[in-house]
């Protein structure tokens, strides 16, 4: 739960706000509850909002949301805020077996909490109307919106048309033998793209090993437990001081097994998850890169199209055709579109540059925290192990002298 104190660009204190208290928007995702039956079972979460933003209905609001609601929010933000790295969501599907395991649910809850808080603390995203809807709307409204989104025709007609045109132009490009789609020729941007793609690979590998390490902790814990039991039995068989020594050893071993399981969990939540989160964040950046590429291409296409239209218009006006009016209208429309596309593209570029700075800073922080947690956990574990075994030594000495 992070309360934000980021300055809101361009927002002013509404005359309604009673005090000079700095604006805050703080959200928490908690209390997962399993609802429904059988195949349709799902988990719902309680989302609590505390805020003094004027646009919100009140200082506090509690709603119930499920995972697909979060997806809805993410998708809406992704459409509206191009250029901004939308905070990533935890993965959609999980192996059926684990979907309702306590660990999985907790991991997801944590990730969702972080997701919403990142949105709430982003100077632009926190202004989103969709966010307000998400945080405040009643369940039925949310359900309606969600259903609408997930319908096959979730794209608006205009978008569908655009998709059509894209396909058309791609096909015609191929047919006409035009080369690959237009791309920016900014070398720094190229470097960035390369960096992002490479980074994902490196991080994915690190995350894979981190996950394995969690497993190893569990396995070591298990084997310590089994070993402890076996040694205790051996001790019972031996009897005398030797038997006692064995029994003590076995008991210690079992104690340590518990410690290892605990540490495995810590590792999972405080190191492996942040790493996974990092991977997802990079994927979000990739999505933005794609958006930028799309915007760039659209801008180029429109520019091309305008040129053609201009030529056509001139031709028509020269021959004083009665189609001039229509053509002129089309031309003006396209001009507006083109300007819009250029604006969009430029805003994406600008936003991305801003976002990148924050992204790198944030990730350094996140990783720093993760390393710190890891190190503390490991040190704690190692100390626990050393203490446990050390306490046995005087007893062993006593045994051998008896």
């Amino acid at each position, binding site marked *: 739960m992070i309360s934000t104190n980021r300055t809101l660009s361009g927002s002013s204190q509404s005359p309604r706000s009673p005090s000079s208290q700095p604006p805050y928007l703080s959200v928490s995702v908690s209390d997962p509850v399993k609802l429904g039956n059988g195949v349709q079972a799902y988990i719902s979460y309680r989302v609590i909002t505390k805020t003094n933003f004027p646009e919100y209905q009140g200082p506090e609001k509690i709603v119930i949301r499920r995972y697909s609601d979060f997806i809805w929010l993410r998708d809406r933000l992704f459409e509206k805020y191009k250029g901004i790295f939308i905070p990533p969501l935890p993965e959609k599907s999980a192996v059926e077996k684990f979907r309702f395991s306590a660990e999985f649910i907790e991991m997801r809850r944590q990730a969702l909490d972080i997701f919403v808080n990142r949105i709430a603390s982003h100077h632009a995203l926190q202004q989103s109307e969709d966010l307000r809807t998400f945080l405040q709307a009643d369940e039925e409204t949310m359900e309606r919106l969600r259903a609408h989104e997930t319908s096959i025709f979730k794209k608006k007609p205009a978008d569908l048309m655009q998709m059509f045109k894209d396909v058309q132009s791609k096909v015609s490009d191929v047919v006409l033998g035009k080369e690959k789609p237009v791309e920016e020729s900014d070398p720094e941007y190229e470097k960035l793209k390369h960096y992002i793609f490479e980074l994902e690979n490196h991080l994915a590998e690190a995350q894979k090993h981190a996950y394995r390490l969690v497993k190893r902790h569990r396995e070591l814990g298990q084997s310590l437990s089994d070993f402890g039991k076996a040694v205790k039995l051996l001790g019972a068989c031996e009897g005398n001081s030797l038997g006692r020594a064995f029994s003590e050893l076995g008991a210690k071993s079992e104690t340590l097994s518990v410690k290892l399981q605990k540490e495995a969990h810590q590792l999972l939540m405080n190191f492996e998850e942040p790493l996974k989160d990092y991977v997802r964040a990079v994927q979000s950046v990739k999505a933005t890169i794609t958006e930028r590429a799309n915007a760039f291409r659209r801008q180029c296409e429109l520019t091309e199209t305008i040129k053609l239209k201009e030529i056509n218009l001139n031709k028509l006006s020269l021959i004083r055709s009665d189609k001039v009016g229509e053509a002129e209208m089309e031309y003006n429309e396209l001009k507006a579109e083109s300007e819009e596309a250029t604006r969009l593209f430029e805003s994406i570029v600008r936003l991305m540059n801003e976002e*990148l700075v924050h992204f790198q*800073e944030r*990730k350094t922080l996140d990783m720093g925290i993760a390393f710190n947690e890891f190190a503390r956990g490991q040190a704690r574990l190692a100390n626990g192990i050393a203490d446990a075994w050390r306490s046995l030594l005087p007893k062993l000495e006593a045994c051998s002298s008896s």
Partner: protein
Amino acid sequence: MMGSENEGFEEAHLYASREEMENLVLDDPLNNNGNDNNNNNNSNSSINGKSYSAYRSAMSSLSDTHHPLSSPILVTSAESDPLLSPPRFRDLRNPNAPESSYIEPPAYSDVIFCPFEGNNVSDINGVESPSRNSDFSGRFSPSSSSSSSSSEYLKITVSNPQKEQENSNSIVPGGNTYVTYLISTRTNISDFGGSEFGVRRRFRDVVTLSDRLSESYRGLFIPPRPDKSVVESQVMQKQEFVEQRRVALEKYLRRLAAHPMIRRSDELKVFLQVQGKLPLPTTTDVASRMLDGAVKLPKQLMGESTVLAPHEVVQPAKGGRDLLRLFKELKQSMANDWIGSKPAVVEEDKEFLEKKERVNDLELQLSNASQQAEALVKAQQDMGETLGELGLAFIKLTKFENEEAVFNSQRVRATDMKGFATAAVKASRFYRELNAQTVKHLDMLHEYLGLMLAVHNAFTDRSSALLTVQTLLSDLSSLESKAEKLEAASSKIFGGDKSRVRKIDELKDTIRVTEDAKNVAIREYERIKENNRTELERLDRERKADFLTMLKGFVLNQVGYAEKISNVWTKVAEETSGYEKESS
């Protein structure tokens, strides 16, 4: 002298088993290490107030073990790392000998390797530790705590396998090759009449030795010899197989040398000393024995040579040539079991029966513990490996971020990553070292498990000797009753019955010889019983000492490495303490 992590850092290059690591130039982030420990003491680190032990990584002579359960190959790190001063062999009795400069609880990482490492290292350096006449793997010997005042040792080494030709006229040209090994002995035991000598022996000779020992020392817990391997001759020649066998032979001979009675045996002496062909009678295979026995059988059935000579009696019927005797004893054992008739002599030693139960129980638990020990070792190994891989992944990330850095935050992150990665790689190495040592310690469980076979054999010696006695007794009683009957019948005839009288005389002879045989058999049985008893005592005594040593070694090892690993991570925690989450 504070062992510094600088040493350890160089070690990272020495022992890196991956080329990636060796290619990396990791500039040392641990420059201030000399001051670090002091700083640590002063700071109120909530994380770790324990001792910061001196880093003595050189004992990682075993970090190159590829298979945790194979005998670790000793790397003489003593020679390879000049930074380390000699006495690394620390006396277990003196764990507080201050190597670390802190008065904190004793840093066990200084002491970890003492009993075994010290042993091996001193062997390498040619310093003999007198009371230890065998290496760890052959340890069924008087433990140091109860070592006698004598300083005798018998040190055997097996080396130098060589292929040799069998020079018989075989039809296949260049056929039968076999491998011989050089058996070198160093001893100060006077009986040997020499202090250093060597002979060449082949595996078959070892089998002969083992068989002869089993015969001569019935009732003792004779260490079992390495298995004959039923593999193709091609495999026999392979380096790996030969090396495995060499190691197994060495272990076996050292165990023999560690046995208080067997080490003085003629058989062993002869095996170790006599040049050329081994002058011990070889064992004939089962088929030939049965054949010999079959030849003798008709005569026996006819009544000739039915008498059991005393010298035969001291060996069990099974495995011999006397089929008739075999049948008789079999009949006797069936009588014991089924018909329930109580034979004259019975295993009445309750104490022995209880001990036998205990031994069986012990074997069961040992087997279980041995299995779990193996699983534990594997888990430790995996942990180390995965940690290492994680570290490497971050090292790659570090390089990557540094190369591609546009923002300063990236460089900061790269530095953090490097600190983390280095620590992970170090910790990984510690796990692997820890594991190599764990294997050595817990190996004692496997050792004693292997010994159970010897115990069973000794018990079998006893029961077969008993069976021989019982058979002879019932023989005797039936002979005597026969004699009685004859005498009664002959006394009815006045003047005596010449043929009957003759028969009676013959019978009386037979009875006398059988009586002698019976006495010998009883003596043998008693002897074996006594052997069993003393051996059981010895087993209990030595097992207790050995297991306690094992436990201590295991625990010390764990403590030592846990401390080292803790230090590594504590450092990282401090370096990244700026990021520490405020508790929410």
